[in-house]
């Protein structure tokens, strides 16, 4: 019995499947070990960096006799005064702990989202599914459009991504060195440039929406800081508006950090 072309194609494909079934290159065991090790490293990193449940045990309460009460009250007062003084000093002195606090301008506000959403709508009206991205570096806006529009583009979801470089001043506050807002359609490979007086930063960016609505951001920055190496980073945006610190370095004794944040323009309520 002769097979039709579809059946013949299926046969060919099944032959290819059988031939390539056991073609897995690197041993599965080796790969398994690598994955387990990576997950262990990530897990321990998460525990050190971000587990708020780690607390120090309080010492057991002790009873005190009335004769020791006065010195204890005096001691407590002095301790409180010392703590207040310490809090004041810490508040106005830049410390490494402050480095963890991102600058306000790295955060995308609700108003920014609203504006970006409006702009994205307009761009999509103009360019349809060919619209890929718009980059605003504070002085110029460049729009990236696909050469061929994709009529079957399933995902028209967009995000606003902010990438900025900040310099810490002597008083501990942050100053913006450069900042770029990117309205991007999911899955578009975005390429842009931010030029400052002393450098030109090349940005490559790709966003991908995971099934549950989280957005994964893949960023490559060429020379984000003068004389600095290129930076490749991948972030899963776990919380709307969360600012990620991608990298920090010291140049001439000053701290410089690269921050990134993202807000979805499609699924988040305004």
């Amino acid at each position, binding site marked *: 019995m002769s097979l039709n072309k*579809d059946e013949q194609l299926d046969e060919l494909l099944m032959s290819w499947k059988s031939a390539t079934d056991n073609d*897995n290159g690197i041993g599965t065991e080796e790969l398994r070990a690598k*994955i387990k090790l990576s997950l262990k490293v990530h897990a321990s990193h998460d525990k050190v960096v971000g587990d708020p449940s780690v607390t120090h045990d309080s010492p057991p309460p002790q009873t005190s006799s009335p004769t020791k009460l006065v010195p204890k009250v005096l001691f407590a007062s002095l301790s409180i005064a010392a703590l207040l003084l310490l809090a004041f000093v810490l508040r106005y002195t830049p410390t490494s702990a402050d480095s963890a606090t991102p600058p306000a301008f790295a955060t995308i506000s609700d108003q920014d989202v609203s504006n970006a959403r409006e702009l994205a709508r307009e761009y999509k009206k103009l360019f349809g599914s060919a619209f890929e991205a718009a980059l605003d570096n504070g002085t110029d806006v460049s729009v990236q459009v696909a050469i061929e529009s994709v009529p079957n583009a*399933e995902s028209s979801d967009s995000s606003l991504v902010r990438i900025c470089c900040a310099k810490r001043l002597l008083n501990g506050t942050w100053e913006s060195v450069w900042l770029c807002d990117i309205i991007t359609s999911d899955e578009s490979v975005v390429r842009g440039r931010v030029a400052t007086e002393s450098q030109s930063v090349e940005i490559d960016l790709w966003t991908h929406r*995971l099934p549950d609505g989280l957005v994964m951001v893949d960023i490559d920055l060429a020379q984000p800081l003068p004389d600095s190496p290129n930076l490749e980073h991948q972030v899963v945006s776990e919380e709307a508006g969360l600012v990620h610190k991608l990298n920090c370095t010291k140049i001439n004794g000053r701290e410089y950090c690269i921050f990134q944040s993202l807000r979805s323009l499609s699924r988040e309520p305004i």
Partner: protein
Amino acid sequence: MKESDESLLERFQHHSDSPALDVLLDRHLESVQRVIRRMGVHQDDVPDLVQDTFIKAIRGITSFKKESKFSTWLHRIAMNSTMDYFRKLERRKTETLPELPDVKQSCPSERARYSETIKAVDSAICSLKEIHRSAIVLTTIEGYSVQDAAAICSCTPNAMSVRLYEARRILKTILKEHLQ
């Protein structure tokens, strides 16, 4: 009774239960590895993509809403990593001078031991666009339903059917000499 993937994940996440992770890897590692390889990723890069896939899936599982099966979610991440790989490859190709050898070709041709027919199929599948290749690999080769393949590729089942039809049409044209 077979323990569900979700329950194994929970055991691994909350109790660092290594045997639970072993079972998950037993169930899915080879399948993910196979799909990534069959998509035409260079064999040197397959382990990295597989590793990335598992790390992303397991680290991001807290927000997995269980609307789909874990394996669908996992393969979706694998497919996205693969698509990203091809994009980066394309980008590097345009940035690198042709005579420089550091850009790895996708769809490796080191399958010398295969028959001419298998090589022809290999080459034909590799010549497909990634969206068509994923349609063929996931449905015809890996046996996913059109619905599941659509979920993995983040498209509608209709779009997946169109991709599959188109992929088969192209394959029939390329492989016409092998079809009587």
